[in-house]
């Protein structure tokens, strides 16, 4: 394949979902079956093309292979212009395939899941728009169009989360998602502005080479700030602390949408973006990123412990897993983090679609306390769910283990590279989160699929889902097995993925990129086996605790909760973040707005009217002279003339 063909194929992949969106919006309702086959077909076609591209890159297996093309979007007659283009390298090629695959499967799944919805056609249109925006981010070779697609992702998530807008919670959740994301976007935009004002280009490669050549004239502190600001975008999109609050609420959207958001499109965008700008981040910025990531991983895992909504547990697990990826990037384990993005995408999509299948089977019951024993009723779902859970919990032989292990190993390596001490807290938090993950996933699986049915009525009506729903589950769970990525079930770094997308060398001046890279790799390698052992131990411990509590019922969960009541409440109420934000940010905003509106009406407009009244008052005063008597007018005229002449004489 020539370069042109590849680029054209990539453009086709990008545009097919958009075409699907436009067709669905314009004519979807009039098409047979409301056009679901058309939208799904478009995505299938896109996937085939993307897979071809990815296979081409795989077969070439060249770490430096890059194809790019761009065009001039805006030229203002100066010596710079805004060039927008796309870049195909190993990372974007495989991501393209991953996104289109998951989107395709979600389309397929939705055919059954939403078949009796009023706005069935619109729904598929929105899915297309969502996929299009994400693909745009993946393919962009520059910050500008990345930002544009970034915001479009925000729009499509708004549309999809609020798809059932007649529910108040859904409408509120969609607003919350968009606004929270906007906060991050502002940071990202400021970061872009810092780079723009230095280099007058938005092309990532040109920025990187500019930094490398020392054309960044401001101090390194500015570069760190720029990096942190760019990271803010990812904090919003990838739901990192402190902007993670939108993601659990986003569960108000249809379940397949959650799968799309959590696995392939929205939250992945943040991590993908940081991976794209990774080389220009200073060590200080990376440390901030690592701290935020590790903290998020741990915090979200604790929140997931006590939730009862099947989707919310998964939502917090997503936040937690994203924390891992961010932490991985922060500690310099670039390829491990990107690797985790992939493995996570598949098993998390499987989990969400699986939970969708459960909810579908249980007639829209989402509370895991109402479930139980479903493995007999939903055998396919059960098996796939179990595989995906194992991958998420980090059991060996599953993909999740490979990538998670690589990240934690990277963390240890980084900690010792930095000199140990407090830095070891980062990988430790990661390990702790691994334990918690194993526990809450175990809890979920035991409560949903094992034991006795707790709601007999709903249980009796449950039945296995149709083929369009379980086929995606099977595909995704197969992709969660270790051989897909690495033939060695205990070491991800020997697999094709981490060799195809190796770690990158920093271009920041003052940092010996090559030495840093080599040092980190060396130390990570040392930490590998201890990590394997410790993380397996953690996972097994977590699962064992869950088993003891929820399977054997050796310890009563309610009593345990009561004895640890403050901790339980803290977890159950999500660390009171929503309440905190409600009291400070939201209320503060409303108060400020009301004060402004009040100020405008009663101070500024009042002053305007007072000016009017003053003029009016003088008018009244002057009116006294308007006696209506001709002679007084003459008198005034004469006086005026006299005054004029007197003044003329004086001056």
């Amino acid at each position, binding site marked *: 394949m020539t370069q042109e063909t590849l680029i054209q194929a990539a453009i086709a992949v990008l545009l097919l979902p958009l075409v699907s969106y436009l067709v669905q919006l314009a004519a979807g309702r009039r098409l047979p079956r409301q056009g679901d086959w058309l939208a799904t077909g478009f995505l299938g076609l896109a996937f085939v093309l993307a897979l071809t591209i990815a296979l081409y890159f795989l077969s070439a297996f060249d770490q430096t292979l890059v194809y790019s093309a761009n065009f001039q979007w805006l030229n203002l007659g100066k010596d710079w212009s805004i060039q927008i283009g796309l870049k195909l390298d190993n990372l974007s090629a495989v991501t393209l395939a991953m996104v289109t695959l998951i989107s395709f499967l979600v389309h397929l799944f939705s055919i059954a899941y939403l078949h009796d919805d009023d706005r069935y056609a619109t729904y598929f249109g929105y899915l297309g728009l969502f996929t299009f925006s994400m693909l745009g981010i993946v393919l962009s070779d520059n910050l500008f169009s990345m930002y544009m697609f970034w915001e479009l992702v925000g729009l499509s998530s708004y549309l999809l989360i609020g798809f059932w807008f007649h529910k108040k919670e859904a409408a509120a959740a969609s607003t919350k998602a968009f606004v929270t994301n906007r906060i991050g976007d502002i940071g990202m935009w400021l970061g872009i502005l810092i780079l723009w004002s230095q280099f007058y280009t938005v092309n990532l490669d040109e920025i990187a080479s500019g930094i490398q050549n020392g054309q960044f004239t401001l101090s390194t502190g500015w570069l760190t700030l720029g990096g942190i600001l760019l990271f803010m975008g990812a904090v919003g999109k990838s739901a990192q602390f402190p902007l993670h609050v939108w993601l659990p609420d986003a569960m108000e959207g249809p379940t397949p949408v959650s799968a799309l958001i959590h696995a392939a499109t929205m939250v992945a965008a943040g991590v993908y973006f940081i991976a794209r700008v990774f080389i220009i981040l200073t060590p200080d910025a990376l440390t901030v990123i690592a701290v935020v990531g590790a903290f998020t991983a741990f915090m979200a895992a604790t929140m997931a412990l006590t939730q009862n909504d099947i989707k919310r547990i998964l939502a917090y697990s997503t936040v937690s897993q994203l924390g891992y990826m961010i932490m991985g990037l922060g500690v310099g384990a670039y390829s491990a983090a990107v690797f985790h993005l992939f493995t996570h995408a598949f098993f998390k999509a499987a989990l969400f679609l699986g939970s969708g299948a459960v909810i579908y089977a249980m007639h829209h019951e989402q509370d895991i306390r109402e479930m139980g024993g479903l493995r007999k009723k939903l055998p396919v779902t059960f098996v796939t769910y179990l595989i995906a859970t194992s991958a998420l919990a980090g059991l060996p032989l599953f993909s999740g283990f490979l990538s998670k292990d690589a990240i934690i190993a990277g963390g240890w390596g980084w900690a010792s590279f930095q000199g140990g001490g407090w830095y070891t807290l980062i990988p430790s938090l990661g390990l702790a989160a691994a334990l918690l993950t194993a526990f809450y996933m175990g809890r979920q699986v035991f409560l949903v699929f094992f034991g006795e049915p707790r709601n007999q009525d709903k249980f009796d009506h449950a039945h296995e889902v149709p083929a369009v729903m379980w086929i995606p589950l099977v595909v995704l769970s197969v992709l969660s097995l270790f051989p897909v990525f690495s033939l060695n079930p205990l070491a991800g770094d020997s697999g094709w993925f981490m060799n195809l997308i190796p770690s990158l060398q920093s271009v920041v001046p003052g940092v010996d990129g090559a030495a840093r890279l080599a040092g980190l790799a060396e130390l990570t390698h040392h930490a590998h086996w201890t990590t394997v052992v410790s993380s397996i131990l953690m996972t097994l411990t977590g699962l064992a605790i869950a088993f003891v509590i929820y399977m054997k019922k050796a310890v009563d969960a309610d009593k345990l909760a009561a004895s640890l009541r403050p901790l339980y409440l803290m977890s159950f109420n999500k660390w009171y973040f929503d309440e905190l934000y409600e009291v400070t940010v939201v209320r503060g905003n409303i108060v400020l707005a009301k004060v402004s509106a009040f100020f405008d009406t009663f101070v500024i407009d009042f002053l305007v009217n007072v000016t009017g009244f003053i003029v009016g008052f003088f008018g009244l005063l002057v009116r006294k002279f*308007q*006696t*209506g*008597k*001709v*002679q007084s007018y*003459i008198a005034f005229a004469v006086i005026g003339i006299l005054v004029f002449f007197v003044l003329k004489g004086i001056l």
Partner: protein
Amino acid sequence: MESLTLNHFLTLSAVLFSLGVFGVMTRRNAVVVLMGIELMLNSANINLIAFSRYNGNMDGQMLAIFVIVLAAAEAAVALAIILNLYSNYNTVNLDEVDQLKE
């Protein structure tokens, strides 16, 4: 007794003008006000002609002719207005006519 100068005429005209102004401002009767205006016009004419005479230039006299013509026109229109006023208000006392205020 010294000979006449321009200032003599100007002084005469000034006194006449002031009397006219006084009349216009203080009299109630519209007809008398009109007389005051005529006095003022006359004083202006005296000035014009005096300057004309002492500058040896006919332009002043020409202007005075036009002033007289205008005075005639003005008197005609003003009297018509006064008559109209009288038929509408039944008075020619200007202090009772203050509709202009509104």
